[in-house]
C-alpha cells in the first residue's frame, strides 16, 4: 500500500536562521555563572570554532559534539532561561524571512512541515513557538545529570550523515511518500536527506553541497534575509 502523505523537511541552520550552533554556544558560554567560568567556557567555545568549521563540511556529528562541550556543568535552569533570552534577543533577529516563506508555502501546500536542527531543544523549541507552520521539530538534546549538563549530546546527534537513516523510519511512521516530499538543506551532510526525497533543494549551500547540487542538477537558492 503506497504512502498517502507528503512532507517538507527544512534544515534550520542556513535555511530558516542565519546563525548556527557555534553562535548559540558562544552566547551561552559568555553567560556562564561567574567571571572565571565565563572566560574559561567562552575561550573553549572560541577555540572550537575552527574545529567545527573544518569538521562541519563532512562530519558534523563530531563538530556538534565539540561545539556543545562548553555547556558542561551548566545547570538546566540556566540553559532554559538563557535559551529564552538568546531566542528573544538574538535568534529572532537572525530568522530568514525567505525561509519562513518557504515554511508557509509548504504548509499551505498541505505538506507535513518538519524542521531539523543541530541546535539544542531548549533553544529550538522556543524558536518553534515563534515560527508558525512547524508540525515537527527534530533537534539535539543536551544530556543532564543531577540538573547539570554533562557537555554531551544525547544520541542520536542531529547533523551527521545518519539523517538519511532516521528519515526512512520517520517516513514509515508518518505514512509519508518521500518521492513526493521536499527537503531544503544547507550542509554537506544534508546530502542524504536531499537525495532521499523527490524534490530536493540546496539553500545557501556550503561548498560541498553546492558542488553536489550542481552535479545532481538540484535547484539552488541563495538568500540572506
Amino acid at each position: 500500500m503506497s504512502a498517502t502523505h507528503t512532507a517538507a523537511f527544512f534544515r534550520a541552520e542556513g535555511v530558516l536562521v542565519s546563525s548556527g550552533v557555534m553562535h548559540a554556544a558562544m552566547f551561552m558560554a559568555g553567560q556562564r555563572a561567574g567571571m572565571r567560568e565565563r572566560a574559561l567556557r567562552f575561550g573553549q567555545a572560541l577555540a572550537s570554532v575552527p574545529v567545527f568549521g573544518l569538521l562541519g563540511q563532512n562530519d558534523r556529528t563530531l563538530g556538534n559534539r565539540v561545539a556543545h562541550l562548553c555547556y558542561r556543568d551548566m545547570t538546566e535552569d540556566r540553559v532554559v532561561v538563557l535559551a529564552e533570552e538568546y531566542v528573544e534577543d538574538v535568534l529572532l533577529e537572525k530568522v530568514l524571512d525567505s525561509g519562513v516563506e518557504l515554511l508557509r508555502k509548504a504548509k499551505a501546500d498541505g505538506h507535513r512541515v518538519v524542521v531539523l536542527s543541530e541546535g539544542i531543544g531548549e533553544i529550538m523549541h522556543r524558536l518553534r513557538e515563534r515560527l508558525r507552520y512547524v508540525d515537527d521539530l527534530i533537534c539535539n538534546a543536551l544530556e543532564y545529570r543531577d540538573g547539570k549538563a554533562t557537555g554531551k549530546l544525547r544520541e542520536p546527534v542531529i547533523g551527521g550523515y545518519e539523517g538519511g537513516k532516521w528519515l526512512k523510519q520517520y517516513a514509515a511512521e508518518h505514512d509519508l511518500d518521500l518521492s513526493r516530499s521536499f527537503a531544503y538543506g544547507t550542509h554537506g551532510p544534508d546530502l542524504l536527506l536531499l537525495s532521499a526525497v523527490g524534490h530536493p533543494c540546496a539553500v545557501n549551500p556550503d561548498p560541498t553541497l553546492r558542488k553536489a547540487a550542481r552535479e545532481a542538477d538540484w535547484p539552488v537558492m541563495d538568500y540572506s534575509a
Partner: protein
Amino acid sequence: MSDAGTAGRAGGWSIRETLAGKRVLLTGASGFVGKVWLAMMLDRLPQIGRIYVLLRGKGRGARERFEKIVNESPVFKPLHEAQEGRMSEFVSQRVEVVAGDVSAPKLGMDDATYERLVADVDVVLNFAGLVDFNPDVRDALASNVDGAMHVADFCERSGRAVLLHVSTCYVAGHRDGRVPEAPVGDRSPGGKPLQAQAEYAALQQLIADVHAENDDPATEASLRDDVLRRLAERGHEGDYKRVTDMVGRLKRKRLRENMAKAGTDRAKSLGWPNTYTYTKALAEALLQQRADRVRVSVLRPAIVESATEFPFAGWNEGFNTSGPLVYLAGTWFRHVPAAAGNPLDVIPVDFVCKAITIVACALLRDEASPVYQCGSSDRNFLAIDRLTELSALGHRKHLREHGANALEKLVLSRWDAKAADPEHVLNVTNIRKLMAQVTRYLKHGRPEKIPSEVREWADDMSKTTDNGVRKLRQIEDVLELFMPFTYEHYCVFVCRAIDRHVIIEPEFRFAPETIEWRSYWLDVHMPGLRRWCFPEYEDKPKEIYTPKTPFRLLDPPAAASPSVTSTSVGEVGS
C-alpha cells in the same frame, strides 16, 4: 467516630462533607497563613457552619479590625469579585468575630462568649503565634506557649472540640538528616533532658530573674550615672524629672533587650537556633502531655512562601524567609551565605492551607496522626544553591526589561549571585562595613575646601550609602537568623503522614511533588515577592486592595447562618 456518610467514595473521603455545618474557632486569622486559610474556606467551602475568628481588640475594635483586613488585604480580592455586592452578607453569614487574645486565660473572651463557644465549636485551629525569631521572651512565651495552652484549655472544657495546633518544622532545632514526623522527644536537640513542665517553670524563673536584675537598685544607679554623664558631655544639666524619664526609658529598653537575649541564650543552650523554634517546641511538648484529654494534632509547616494559585499565583506578604535571600541575589552583592546542596524547605501557602484543612477533617473523623510535617524537601527537593541561581536568573530576566538604567540592564542583570561560605571576603558584613566607611568619609572625612557641586554630590551620595548600610544591616540580621537553615544544618523533613488521608476533591489535595520549581520560582514566587514584599524592604508603601463595595460585618440577625442540607452541600460544592 468516623462518619460513614463521608467515606468510601473512590477510596477517599470528602473535605466538603466533613466540614459541612461544622463550627471552627480560628486564632491567628490576621497572619499570613490565617488569612489565606480563611479566604480559602469562604471561597471553596461556603457550606462550613460557622467560623469564629478570634481577634484582639475590645468591643467594635475586633470587628473593625476584621473589616479592615477583609477590605484591604488582596487575599480577599477573589472573594470580593465572586460575591460582587453580596460580600457583607456572604461573610457575615459564615463568620463571627470574637474579641479576645490567645495569650489570656479563657482566650481573653468574656465568660458568656467563652461558654457559648465551648458548647458550639467542633474544631479549633490555632494559627496564633509570634513568628519573630528572637523577640522578648515574655511575648514569645505568651503567644506561642500560653496561647497553645489556652486553646487546649478551651478544647478540654468543651470535651468534644478537637485542636489543630500550627507549629513549625524547625522545632527540630540544630539537627542534621531526616527529621521524622514524631512528637518532640524527652531530649532537646542539644541532647539535654527535656521535661516540658520543668522547662516551662525554668523559663518563667528566667523571666523573673531578668526582671529582678533590671529592677536592682544598682542597675538603676548605673543607668542614672550614665544619663548624667551623657547630659554633662552635651553641656546639659538634667533636672530630676528629665533624668528619671530617661532612666525609665533606658530601663525598659534594657529589659526588652535582656529578655530577648535571655530567650535566645536559653534556646541556644538547649539546641534550638532561636526563641521562636524553642517556644514552639515547648508548646508542642506541653500539648503532648494533654493528649489524653484533648484530641490534638500538630501541623508543622516548613518555610511558607508565595501561593501557587490561591488566592492567586504569587500572593505573599511580609519579611519572609526566602525574601531577603532573593532580594540579595538582585543586588550587587553576589555571595549569598548558604551551603550548596542544603535544602531550603519551601512550601507555598496554599499548599499549607490545604494540609491544614485535611488534618482538621482527619481530626473530626478521629483518624488523625499526632504530628504532620508540611514541607517539600522530602518529596520535591530544592537545594539552596539552585534557588540562589534561579533568583539571579529571575532578576536577570526582570532587569533586562525593567532595569532603571543601562547599568542595571546590562551589568547588574548579569551579576550572578551564588551560594558562598559566610566567611567569604565579599560577604554582606564586609560590604556593609566598607559602605559605612565610605559614608563616614563622605560625611566627615572629605576636605573642607571643595567646590560646592562636589559637596552637594558628596551629601547626596552619603545619603544613598547611608540608606544602603541600613538595608544591608537588615538583610544581614535576617541572613544570620536563617544561617542554621541555609548553611549550618542539612535537614530533610519527612512529610508522609498526610498521605494516609485520601481526599476525593482534587482542589484540596496536598501534593508538593507537583511543584515545578523553576516555573514556580521564576514565574510565581519572584514576581510575587517583587510586588508584595520588596516594597516593604525598600520602605515603599504597601499595595492594598480596594473593593468596589466595601465589606461590613453585619449583626447576627441580618446574617443568618447558611442552611446546610445534603442538597445545598452538593450544589455549592459542584
